[in-house]
């Protein structure tokens, strides 16, 4: 197992983020993490990234504590931002000097295919910033990618371009967890769909098996979570 959660509960001050969640993630899977706002999607990804610690239960990534394995994990958060003065070339310097698995040539190629302007991030639109951060994420050769709402607030054309880049860059031994509200557009990528409701696992199923039954991942979303 690449990563696993065992009876993980994450309690925040006011409410429970996750309740008694147990999940296994083998290598080579592309997993959709789906749910309404507040269902625990971000919490799940952040626990796997080691940005949050469980209130109870254990999170194991690459047979160790997630934070200690951060050199092999890519976390693309919804809120994380770059410094406003940073340009893509600053970002390249940052990434290639701090990460051993960063592929600068691939980064440049992604900047091109994602049409990221070569300016300071404070002059970029939200979509352009999102695409820059995605380029930084996909240019790394990690084994676990945690993408938290990579399509949020991004225009349609960019979303398709982003999904296409993810497909292009994915290798069969890598595991990607992708949480999104744009389920309809992204569902083709998922082999497996995890539905969370109020911090609990509502459904964990193979996407194609859902379709065998004539239902898309989106249709099931409405059924399970409405």
């Amino acid at each position: 197992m690449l990563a696993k959660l065992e009876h993980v509960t994450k309690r925040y001050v006011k409410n429970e983020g996750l309740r008694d969640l147990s999940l296994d993630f083998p290598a080579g899977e592309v997993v959709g993490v789906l749910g309404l706002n507040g269902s625990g999607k971000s919490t799940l990804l952040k626990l796997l990234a080691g940005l949050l610690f469980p209130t109870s239960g254990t999170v194991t990534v690459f047979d160790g504590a997630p934070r200690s394995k951060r050199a092999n994990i890519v976390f693309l958060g919804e809120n994380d931002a770059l410094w406003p003065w940073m340009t893509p070339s600053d970002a390249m310097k940052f990434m290639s000097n701090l990460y051993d698995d960063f592929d600068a040539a691939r980064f440049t190629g992604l900047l091109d295919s994602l049409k990221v302007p070569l300016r300071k991030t404070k002059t970029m639109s939200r979509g352009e910033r999102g695409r820059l951060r995605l380029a930084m994420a996909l240019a790394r050769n990690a084994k676990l990618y945690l993408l938290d709402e990579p399509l949020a607030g991004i225009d349609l054309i960019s979303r398709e371009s982003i999904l296409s880049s993810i497909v292009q860059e994915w290798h069969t031994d890598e595991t990607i967890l992708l949480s999104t509200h744009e389920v309809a557009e992204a569902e083709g990528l998922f082999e497996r769909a995890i539905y969370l409701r109020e911090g609990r696992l509502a459904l964990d199923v193979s996407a194609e098996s859902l379709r065998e039954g004539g239902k898309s991942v989106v249709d099931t979303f409405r059924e399970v979570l409405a």
Partner: protein
Amino acid sequence: MKRFSTLIWLEHRRNWMWSLPLLGSLLFWAWGIKQVTVMDVGERLGIRAGLLAGAIAIGTLVLCIMIGRIRSETRNGQYQVLLMSPPAGYTHITARFTYAVGVGFAYYVAIGFLFWWVFALAGIHFDARSLVDLILAMPLYGMSVGVFPLLAYTLLLMVFVSAYRISGKGWIPGVVMLLGTPVVLQWIGNGMTRILWTLPSWRVFENVPAAVYEQFGQGEGYEFITSASELDYTGLPIEPMLLMLALTVVFLILAGRIWQEVEA
């Protein structure tokens, strides 16, 4: 090393709006010194020394503000990016501290030079083993005793506050630390006076010129000068310096440790 130097680069890009103006302000202080045209030599020296004392205080404040700018990062999500980066918390902390100290060193050495100049303009010359000793020693001592621990403490305080941000009660440990500080400082101060000068002291200057006694010999706090009026100048006590350096290291280690444990 590549990682560390990249973090220093990051610090500079983040902070140049503070560090460069700070260094630039030296020109202002130098200009200010020239503007003092009081007739009496002693008074002139006093005003100029006062200006430089002000420059020291302001410099320390600016450096602390600069190093403590963690809040905006936690709000904007950049902290997450740093937490997920491979370098350890200690490395991040050390890089921030090193940058601030580097800027501070340039600043205080320049002020040290301005002090020497101000005294020279009043006709007072200090003797030291070399010019380097003369210009570097006092800033180094002053930084070790005052600036290093203050910077490390500010860093620790800000990291500490950020650590509890998630639970929403970040201000409580921060307030506790701030309120507890005077108590701790007093305890340290009392303990220190008892051990002063037990270790060999640091003879920064060969002697303190007689003219200095004449100007500043009256009043408390100048015991080290007046007691040396028998030309028995003992030098600067080394204990505060060692103690503060040790405290600095402790603060930095704590800050690095908390960084590793922070949620974001």
